[in-house]
């Protein structure tokens, strides 16, 4: 059994150790603690509750199967999120490209100032939905950094890219979002596979 450092209050490490010792029920503790985070992470990528829960479930099962590979070198949250990201990436690969609300896009296209006229809350919601339409290499950093409130180092570790690359992608992703939301609303309805 791997030597996983267990600190006081480190429930995850304790549960991992118990599962690896044969008590699979201890995985329930991990599920309880992380279900919200993994479901919400999946939801940021698909904006579909059912699909988000299915994706999160797949991620938990994969994590359970791979639990013996967790050595405690990185935080459990980093390890689990990396597994979830890989799972979501493969789940979304075969999914049709995502588009934002067509009615809102049409309205805004007819009325150039429609975006400005929307309430802040609606505008923010449309902007968040627009994240799903970004190319994968910009979408993933933005979801992890902003929605999951991870710091640069942690985000870079999960995505396995240097921090400099991460900063550049965050900047480019923000620029794309800014451009798409500035009056040219029709531009939001683009394929997520756009290069």
């Amino acid at each position, binding site marked *: 059994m791997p030597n996983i450092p267990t600190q006081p209050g480190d429930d995850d490490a304790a549960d991992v150790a118990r599962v690896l010792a044969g008590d699979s029920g201890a995985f329930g503790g991990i599920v309880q603690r992380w279900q919200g985070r993994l479901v919400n992470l999946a939801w940021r990528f698909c904006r579909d*509750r059912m699909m988000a829960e299915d994706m999160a479930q797949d991620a938990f099962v994969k994590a359970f199967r791979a639990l013996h590979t967790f050595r405690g070198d990185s935080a459990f949250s980093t390890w689990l999120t990396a597994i979830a990201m890989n799972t979501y990436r493969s789940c979304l690969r075969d999914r049709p490209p995502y588009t934002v609300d067509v009615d809102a896009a049409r309205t805004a296209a007819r009325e150039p100032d429609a975006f400005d006229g929307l309430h802040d809350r609606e505008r923010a919601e449309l*902007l*968040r939905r627009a994240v799903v339409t970004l190319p994968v290499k910009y979408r993933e950093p933005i979801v992890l950094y902003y929605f999951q409130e991870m710091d640069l180092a942690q985000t870079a570790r999960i995505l396995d890219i240097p921090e400099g690359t991460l900063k550049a992608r965050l900047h480019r992703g923000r620029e794309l979002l800014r451009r798409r*939301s500035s009056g040219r609303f029709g531009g939001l309805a683009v394929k997520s596979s756009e290069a």
Partner: protein
Amino acid sequence: MAQQMDDLDRALSHDDMLVPSSGFAARVMDAVQDAQAEPPLLAFPWRPFAIGLVACVVWAASLIAMMNRLDRGLLREVAASFADAEPLPTYAIAIALATLIVLGVQRTLLRR
């Protein structure tokens, strides 16, 4: 990321939180139990593969060594007999015999 927090940052930083449905954790644990009950994936049969590989190498090396030791004249005679024979039936019989031998070897190996 020393940029100032603008509207875009604020919009991205605040999103509604989705609460997992009530039976979600139980469903996950069921899926985990199912995964645990599944038989482990079949590992690649490295041992038989290695034995087979070694056997093939030994067989090929033996064949080459045998061919080198055989009387060149005998080989020429065999080749000549094939060349003199009626091509179609001779080759057909040779191929049929070779196929039967290969099939026999395969069946023997699969039975093990």
